[in-house]
């Protein structure tokens, strides 16, 4: 598909690139503990970008029975309206190897995937709750090519195992969720981790206690950390730099945050589903420190944001691309706080000792709504626990936490010893002092 697309590109456009993606995703779903359906999605599609008279256009299709020249024609119509943009396509065709594929995933039968789910249902079952488990395996192949000679192809696998448990009593609905992600099937240690995580968090949530109130120490679990990290992810993106709205613009090299804060994006990590040898625009992957010991060091760019900043920057290899629409900027594996390694289940990450009264936040409602980029957040808790005298005393309902990320991260309490992957993000728990907690 790619050679035909490049041929059509060379004929009709000044330059261009093409991305061909084929994937097969198998899903095994246990609903309320019962396996009732199994599904597969086989998909392939072509995304084409052209450069014509200095303008960029894109088009995509899953109608793969049509010739690539049709898609090129549509991309040209798109370019005719586009703004001038000096995109330079990368000419790399040799890339460092990154392990993105596991035989355990490709060779697993539907029966094997179902057994993983069944095992979890058995271990998590309890009479007062419903269990849903979804096991998903994806095998994908991505090929890119461009008119500058850049080309590459790789295969990737991904397995995710998610389990949620819902307990309804009177007017109280409690939902606990966790998910394992990897390129291959989970090990028995991984599955133990998932079971421990869900069981511990459920058992500690059965007792409902009054929420504390005031400016308090709050432990954000690796899952609860989302609200804190989202403003930073926006601020470190080349896209917000182009728009001129990043609060970190012009702050590289200055100590903005507490020394304990380091964030790195690393697409070259072995055996993670978000890893790649090159991004979806053919730019070689590399490890990129974003914040180093409290000091911003760099931003992520794709080809377009780099071009829009007038050649002062190059793509860092963070272009992502679907079948439809134009490539966009995104992170790969975001590594926060500590170095990735094996995970050990520990609730609170050893940060609870010494907290006389505070909160452990595991999930918040409405993260991403509102004015994220400014750093201010205010969210009701979806799942949070009260900490009293170094111990979790129960679940807190009807409470909200608020603060400003840029103020809170000037002083870190501590990182926990419970580093883990939450999908594409690695982090331990984080203790922050002086978070505003309001009960009702």
């Amino acid at each position, binding site marked *: 598909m790619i050679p035909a697309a490049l041929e059509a590109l060379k004929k009709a456009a000044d330059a261009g690139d093409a991305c061909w993606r084929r994937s097969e995703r198998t899903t095994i779903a246990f*609903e309320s503990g*019962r*396996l*009732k*359906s*199994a*599904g*597969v*999605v*086989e*998909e*392939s599609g072509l995304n084409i970008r052209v450069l014509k008279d200095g303008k960029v*256009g*894109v*088009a*995509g*299709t*899953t*109608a793969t*029975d049509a010739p690539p020249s049709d898609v090129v024609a*549509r*991309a040209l*119509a*798109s370019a*005719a*309206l*586009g*703004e001038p943009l000096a995109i330079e396509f990368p000419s790399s065709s040799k890339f460092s190897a990154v392990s993105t594929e596991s035989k355990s995933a490709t060779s697993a039968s*539907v029966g094997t995937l*179902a057994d993983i789910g069944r095992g979890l249902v058995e271990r998590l079952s309890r009479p*007062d709750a*419903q269990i849903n488990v979804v096991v998903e395996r994806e095998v994908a192949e991505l090929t890119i090519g461009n008119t500058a000679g850049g080309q590459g192809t790789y295969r990737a696998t991904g397995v995710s195992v998610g389990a949620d448990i*819902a307990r*309804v009593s009177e007017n*109280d*609905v409690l939902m606990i969720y966790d998910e394992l992600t990897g390129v291959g099937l989970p090990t028995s240690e991984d599955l133990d981790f998932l079971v421990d995580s869900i069981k511990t968090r459920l058992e500690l949530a059965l007792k409902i206690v009054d929420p504390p109130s005031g400016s308090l120490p709050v432990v954000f679990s690796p899952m609860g950390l989302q609200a804190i990290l989202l403003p930073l992810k926006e601020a470190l993106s080349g896209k917000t730099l182009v*728009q001129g709205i990043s609060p970190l613009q012009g702050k590289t090299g200055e100590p903005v945050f507490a020394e304990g804060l380091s964030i790195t994006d690393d697409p070259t990590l072995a055996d993670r589903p978000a890893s790649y040898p090159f991004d979806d625009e053919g730019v070689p992957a590399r490890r990129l420190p974003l914040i180093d010991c409290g000091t911003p060091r760099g931003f992520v760019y794709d080809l377009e944001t780099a071009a829009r900043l007038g050649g002062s920057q190059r793509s860092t290899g963070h272009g992502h691309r679907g*079948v*439809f*629409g*134009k490539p966009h900027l995104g992170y790969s594996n975001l590594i926060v706080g500590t170095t990735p390694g094996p995970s050990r289940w520990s609730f609170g990450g050893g940060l609870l000792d010494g907290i006389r009264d505070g909160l452990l936040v595991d*999930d918040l409602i*409405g993260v991403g*709504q*509102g*004015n994220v*980029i*400014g750093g201010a957040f*205010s*969210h*009701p808790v*979806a*799942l949070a626990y009260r900490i009293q005298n170094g111990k979790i005393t129960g679940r807190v*309902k*009807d409470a*909200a936490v*608020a603060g400003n990320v840029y103020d809170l991260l000037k002083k870190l309490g501590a990182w926990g010893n419970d580093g883990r992957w939450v999908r594409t993000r690695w982090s331990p728990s984080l203790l922050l002092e002086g978070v*505003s*907690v*309001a009960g009702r």
Partner: protein
Amino acid sequence: MRDLLDGALRASRADYTEIRVERTWATGVSFRGRRLETASASEDVGGCVRVLSKGHGWGVAAFTSLRQVPAMIERAQELSRAIVLDEPIRLADVTPQTAEALLDLDGDVRGISLAEKTRLIEAYNGEMLAVSGDITDTIANYHDEVTEYWFVNSEGTSLHELRPEVTLSGTAIARKNGTIEKSLESIGLRKGWNSVHMYADGFKKAGERASQLLRAPTVRGGNYPVILDPEMAGVFIHEAFGHLSEADFVYENPQAREMMTLGRRFGRKVLNVGDNGAAPGLRGTMPFDDEGVPTQDSVLIREGVLVGRLHSRETAARMGERPTGNARALSFRHPPIVRMTNTYIGNGEGTFEDLIKDVKLGVYACSAFGGQTMLESFSFTAAYGYMIRDGHVAELVKDVVLAGNLFQTLDRIERIAGDFQWNQIGGGCGKAGQAYLAVTEGAPHVRIEDALVGGDVA
């Protein structure tokens, strides 16, 4: 296409087989500030086979290559056979349907050039930018599509439909002295090119509001009587209550089933709630759902009492109720699941002024930025609000976030005005990995006796 699908059905050895095929032509244009980000056209083609055999589970195979239909029937059967069930899945009986339901395309968007569509949204974007120097950035999006749809099943249902859709949206971002505010305009229609030309004023208003919000104070957190405008009320009823009436939430969960027992009182006499997939011309409107069941107006709450819920054929059979035409799939990539269509709070009496005239101090929450529910807990962000003082709408306020418990809040809806409207806005609903499905909400102005408004929470 029919012949291809009928042939494939005949080849299936499963007890029940259905095939859906979709071909969607779409264009999208998006501006960021004065800059055109993209203007592009795409074509998405694919299908989904779903089979069921006695004693076995669902086998589902979705694909983008239509040549694969026979192979995919085989694949779905294999997957189905891999699942052994003690308690069989049953489907509620429905009358087989045959229809050529070619909706009026209202000016076929496929005949309009990309350049013309770009000019339209550029003009709307210009309305926002022209408001004042406060508007430092905008986002303006145009999206249209036409979907040709086929559905056949082994019970004799055979449908062929053509569906148009257009959405327009604008975000105006105002900035002054380090303060950033935004305001939205959004239009979503199951219509075509003929219906997109009268929205300049809405985009201009979005620009004006963003600029005004720069000078507006943050609402003071606390408990107030709250009046929801039809948009907020619609989003509230969809998110906070609608999802609980989807039968797949309760049908295999005894505790949830108890919580949602028909006959339970959820609100006062003024409260009526329903979901109407057959309402003419709305985004959630379809003649049939994705199991080939005709859509209908389903009453969920009548005079405060729970009287119904939304079903697929499977959940209806399981609960001994009737299917309601609410099994919908986002696209051929997904199997149908229980979804809302056009969800509404029924009309009450009187005007907006009647609703506020005896409110000494309250909050008027307008136009939703977004909402999230964790079943009984919810949080909704209004795009803007006003204080109500001594029975009148007073100053503009920002950061109006409503949070609370669903059951308490439903029970505190004390008055509903008689100014019902459907909110023809874009966006959509996400559930179980299928986002965003076109839905509509409708409501009149609604008064909640007492609700928590978070601004400054601490």
